């Protein structure tokens, strides 16, 4: 990663300020809010998959867990601040335990995908089967297939009657995404983040350097889950209901598609992929000519065939080729000096 963190922060603030100002002029804030939330969910997988090399098929599990935790806690507590914190912590702790089990058990690659997928499906099945009156946590009934409606939505901290909703809620979500983005940037610049990228590149080498790969992967996995949990809680507030569909297979798959289309190994890619595809799905949902899953599938196939690195890396290369003469020149210069060195022996 080039440039300094402070430059990153300033750039993030500028760009998000402009977007927060312009976007509501084009798209209704109610829709925008959910795009922002999906962006955060995409970023959570983009972090652990794109930078940590952990392909998690069950990011939806942490998203759903965050949403359910918020709903259940909000009903019991009657305000939103503590539930929001719990919605971040519970998925993180759950992921730390699950991650420790997987990484200390030396599971890799496809097995990791299978386990995370199965955990998501177990949660999906379980939440669907909690319709009976015996499934109660405190004052909150789990509600099975119908989910949990009617919980306290986001309020100003310390004043449970001052609800944050509508346009104001969009601004809260957008600012939250900007903050998470800056935190992720800082994490990736830290030693921890740089070692995580090293693990993605070559796990054995990093272990032979003396780093405990298992512990570091577990920690990164938990961070990803915390972000997904926050997105889940924001989603619960937006929908004002949580249902087992949060844990569904299609939800899980969609997050992965967002990352592939947006571009792995970038911070912006998964956010743009998520928001873009979710908006497209929203638009397609308004017509009934073609089934929208068909178009989604087509997009994925086209991307894998023609833009396998995703939108953001492709745009970045295009930008470099058209405007960035300098980096290209530097490569030539390096080659020239290397050739000269070889000639001189």
């Amino acid at each position, binding site marked *: 990663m080039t440039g300094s963190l402070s430059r990153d922060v300033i750039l993030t603030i500028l760009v998000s300020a402009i977007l927060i100002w312009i976007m509501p002029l084009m798209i209704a804030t109610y829709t925008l809010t959910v795009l922002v939330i999906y962006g955060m969910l995409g970023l959570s997988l983009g972090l652990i998959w794109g930078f940590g090399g952990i392909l998690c098929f069950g990011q939806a599990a942490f998203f759903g867990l965050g949403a359910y935790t918020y709903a259940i806690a909000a009903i019991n507590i009657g305000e939103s601040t503590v539930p929001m914190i719990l919605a971040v912590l519970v998925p993180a702790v759950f992921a730390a335990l699950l991650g420790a089990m997987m990484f200390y058990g030396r599971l890799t690659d496809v097995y990791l995908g299978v386990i995370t997928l199965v955990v998501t499906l177990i949660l999906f099945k379980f939440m669907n089967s909690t319709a009976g009156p015996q499934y109660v946590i405190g004052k909150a009934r789990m509600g099975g297939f119908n989910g949990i409606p009617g919980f306290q939505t986001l309020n100003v901290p310390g004043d449970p009657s001052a609800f944050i909703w509508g346009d104001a809620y969009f601004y809260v979500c957008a600012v939250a995404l900007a903050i998470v983005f800056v935190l992720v940037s800082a994490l990736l610049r830290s*030693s921890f983040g*740089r*070692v995580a*990228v*090293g693990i993605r*590149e*070559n796990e*054995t*080498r*990093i*272990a*032979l*350097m*003396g*780093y*405990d*790969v298992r512990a570091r992967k577990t920690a990164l996995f938990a961070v990803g889950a915390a972000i997904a949990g926050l997105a889940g809680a924001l989603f619960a507030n937006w929908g004002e209901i949580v249902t087992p569909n949060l844990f569904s297979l299609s939800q899980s798959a969609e997050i992965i598609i967002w990352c592939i289309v947006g571009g792995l190994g970038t911070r912006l890619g998964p956010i743009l992929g998520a928001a873009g595809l979710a908006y497209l799905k929203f638009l397609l949902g308004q017509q009934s000519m073609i089934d929208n899953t068909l178009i989604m599938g087509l997009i994925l196939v086209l991307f894998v065939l023609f833009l396998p690195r995703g939108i953001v890396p492709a745009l970045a290369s295009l930008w470099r080729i058209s405007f960035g003469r300098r980096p290209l020149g530097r490569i030539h210069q*390096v080659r020239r*000096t*290397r050739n000269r*060195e070889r000639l001189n022996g």
Partner: protein
Amino acid sequence: MAEIVLETQALTMRFGGVTAADNVNFKLRARELRCLIGPNGAGKSTFFKCVTGLQTPTEGQVFMRGHETTHWMPHQIASLGVGIKMQTPSVMDNLNVFENIWLAARRFYPSDEAGRKTTEMIERLALGSIARSNLGQLAHGERQRVELGLVAVADPWLVLLDEPAAGMSAEDVDRMTDIIRELNKTAAIVIVEHDMQFIRSIAEQVTVFHQGAVLMEDHVDRVMADPQVRNVYLGKKA
């Protein structure tokens, strides 16, 4: 006599019916340079993997500076200050030379100091012109040199190298020899190697493996002259 930094006692490794390493007793003193030679399948690499924690021996023990490390993971052994380089270049292809070496330095030094040591190491290895190139774009010899650099930057007291000269040009091998000599001033070094010319140029004490066991252990000149060694290893060349 300097202290013993690496010792194995009756180290045995079996894969099913095959005994790849058979009752190996091995001692290495501080700042010693030892080459392990032997024909293919002699057990050198198995021995190497057991010592580095990549495999756990079936029987026997491994000691490093008094710690028993038999059942340790590779990262625990590396944390003791042991530098390990495997047979094929194992580097991070999508990261540049600086980042590769920095990651190794960061394990033992705070961020700023790691940066300083990395810059120093890049200068020492004459990698300055390609410091910002990704490892994936580099030639084999350069990659080997970077990997040696990331082993050296952590200031190890014991270095284990598996075939460091494999597939390198004569010029690269010379440079590699210089780096290893430099390392040897502060660290004991074990080299598993095939390239006899390289061994002649660098080794003093040599351990010969044959069929999983240690055949002999002596000065390189006497090993090369030994008729038994010529038989099992150099064979037709003699």
